């Protein structure tokens, strides 16, 4: 509340600084705009920025981190009675102190005797510290605003390059925005690495990467059975690979052929209809594909295979028939096929762009040799576009590997090391989801293993994307 009020006040002050800066500029040039280096508003903005921006930044920082500073100051000295408590209870004690100090209800823990005295003392101290911190932030912000204004305005005269200074501020803001995006990515990677590090402290990376048994069910209590888990991720990698392979077997030919049709054969009218339709397919949320897989394709495939099994039963292939009759809804094939359908527009739209960027002069050259359309496509256009198409496929693979929703709903949860597409498999992403959804404790290897999986996934997809983008870049250079 105080922060908002002071920000409002600061805005008013900064507006006044704008008027003052503008007025001073006009006064120094005797009212003539032509004599000024920059337009009058730039002088106003210059003064307003120096008066407002640093102070506003300080206020915002105070609002964001003031509480932390206060907590640190409050907890710097812990009375003996508090130190006697367990670390967990000490945390509860201090969070109750902070809550009471700002007038909120504390937890249900009751404090009595010497603890009560210590509690009241700390509450009083918390209120005092809060006062000191917030008023010092306010005071400092006021000083900054005043100093900014007083230092900036005297520099304003006809020669002063206000426009360049203001543009400098603007470019600073733009840089800050782009740096924020990069820093966020960096932060994600760092946290991934840090948590994975913690995981690999309890499970060796070798047994994680090459172990063939995945059973992360660690008991919540020490006396439960199966108190230790197994963290061999090979079945997950195999499952991911199997689903990806099926998806690419569906998406690569269909996507590529539709791209060839669209870019080389389709008339302008047809192309105008089909291309947007394909792009609509790309806009369908993956969760929709997920329940399409689980509720439509899964039962359909199951019915098909069970039916085939019944037809074959009793024949020479009775073993296979018995197996087919037991096929379940959830299988790698369903997840792979639906994921492949999801990837078709991705592959086709990327390949279409790449085929279109093959220069028309190459096609003309081929036609002028008396080549037919299909000869031209097969022997000139596709070979020329091949590196780019390869890159498109790699990008599709990296999407297939990272895809979560479809496999969660259609592939199954059981980690099995199998190459049978009719079996249920589980993938890296599915395991991350199941490990981290719901209430979880964040210091057991079970939950931390999700970060190990995440890091592996990140490294693989990053590698694929880098290779693909390098290929695309080289390809572009070849024809530009």
């Amino acid at each position, binding site marked *: 509340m105080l922060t908002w009020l002071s920000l409002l006040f600061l805005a008013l002050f900064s507006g006044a600084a704008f008027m003052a800066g503008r007025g001073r500029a006009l006064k120094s040039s005797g009212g003539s705009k032509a004599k000024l280096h920059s337009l009058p508003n730039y002088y106003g903005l210059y003064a307003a920025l120096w008066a407002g921006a640093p102070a506003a930044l300080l206020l915002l920082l105070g609002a964001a981190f003031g509480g932390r500073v206060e907590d640190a100051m409050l907890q710097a000295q812990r009375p003996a009675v508090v130190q006697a408590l367990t670390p967990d209870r000490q945390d509860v004690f201090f969070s109750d102190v902070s809550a009471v100090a700002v007038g909120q209800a504390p937890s249900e823990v009751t404090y009595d005797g010497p603890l009560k005295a210590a509690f009241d003392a700390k509450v009083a101290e918390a209120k005092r510290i809060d006062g000191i911190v917030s008023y010092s932030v306010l005071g400092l912000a006021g000083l900054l605003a005043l100093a900014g204004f007083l230092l900036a305005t005297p520099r304003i005269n006809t020669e002063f390059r206000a426009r360049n200074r203001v543009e400098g501020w603007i470019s600073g803001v733009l840089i800050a925005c782009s740096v924020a995006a990069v820093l966020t990515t960096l932060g994600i990677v760092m946290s991934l690495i840090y948590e994975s590090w913690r995981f690999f402290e309890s499970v060796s990376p070798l047994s994680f990467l090459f172990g063939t048994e995945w059973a992360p069910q660690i008991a919540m209590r020490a006396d439960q059975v199966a108190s230790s888990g197994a963290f061999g991720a090979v079945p997950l990698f195999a499952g991911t690979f199997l689903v990806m392979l099926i998806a690419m077997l569906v998406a690569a030919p269909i996507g590529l052929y539709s791209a060839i049709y669209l870019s080389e054969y389709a*008339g*302008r009218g047809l192309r105008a209809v089909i291309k947007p339709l394909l792009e609509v397919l790309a806009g369908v949320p993956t969760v929709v594909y997920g329940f399409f897989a689980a509720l439509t394709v899964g039962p359909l495939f199951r019915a098909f295979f069970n039916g085939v099994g019944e037809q074959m039963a009793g024949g020479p292939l009775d073993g296979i028939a018995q197996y087919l009759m037991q096929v379940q809804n959830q299988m790698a094939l369903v997840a792979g096929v639906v994921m492949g359908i999801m990837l078709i527009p991705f592959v086709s739209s990327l390949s279409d762009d790449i085929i279109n960027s093959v*220069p028309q*002069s*190459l*096609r*003309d*050259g*081929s*036609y*002028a*040799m*008396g*080549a*037919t359309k299909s*000869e031209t496509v097969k*022997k*000139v256009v596709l*070979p*020329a576009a091949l590196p780019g198409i390869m890159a498109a496929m790699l990008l599709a693979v990296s999407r297939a590997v990272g895809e979560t929703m479809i496999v969660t709903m259609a592939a199954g949860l059981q980690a099995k090391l199998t190459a049978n597409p009719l079996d249920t498999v589980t993938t890296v992403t599915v395991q991350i989801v199941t490990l981290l959804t719901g209430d979880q404790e964040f210091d057991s290897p079970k939950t931390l293993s999700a970060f190990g999986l995440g890091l592996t996934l990140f490294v693989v997809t990053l590698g694929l994307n880098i290779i693909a983008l390098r290929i695309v870049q080289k390809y572009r250079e*070849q024809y530009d």
Partner: protein
Amino acid sequence: MPTENRDDTIAHAPALAAAIPAGHGHVTTGEFKIRARDVNVFYGEKQALFDVSLDVPAKSVTAFIGPSGCGKSTFLRCINRMNDTIPSARVVGSIEIDGADVNAKTVDPVVLRSRVGMVFQKPNPFPKTIFENVAYGPKIHGLASRKDELEAIVESSLKKAGLWNEVSDRLHQPGTGLSGGQQQRLVIARAIAVSPEVILMDEPCSALDPIATAKIEELIDELRSQYCIVIVTHSMAQAARVSQKTAFFHLGKLVESGPTEEMFTNPRDTRTQDYITGRFG
């Protein structure tokens, strides 16, 4: 040639082509390879060519000159029906090669284009090896049944294009790695490899430096003895150097045509005179 037996002629077109022995080239004024009558070309609503009638002599070089957008490239592209690849283009009128109308329904543009080669403004070698570039046409038309036959065709084509000595030791390196002038000669070798009767060149030197241009012009002069060559050029000096006949196009119309020497020394039309003396264009 009378129009009623046109279809008959087309059916025998390849045989007819084979009947003219290569290198049997004595140029006489009466011997015309291509006869165009009242050719009109439309791109959608826009008419690009108006009533062009022109005879192109065999075994000689004919140059089309004229300012940009005058229709000379459009007319060139009618001869091998490259305008078919532009959906909005429509060609009216008759163009006969050896008396056979190229626009007749029975003519397959694929067969036509194997008889009428084309070289483009910008060198456009395929992203394949030098050998594969030249072998492309013979392969798709099945001109060689054995590997050594194919090699012989590639070698003789590269020799005719004057490129053999420069590339014989690197036939299996990418054609895109050659210099611009070499690429253009590679493309000419590629066109020659299918033994065409006519070679169309659309400003073949406009992307080249003077030395490469001189080599191509030399080559054109050598090829003249075996092929009917039509060249579109912006350079009047080039037209004067390489061609025996010149046609001047302006605003989609053929203004005048005649022996090159006559056109440049004694043009009949004032527009031609203005253009070749550099007053416009």
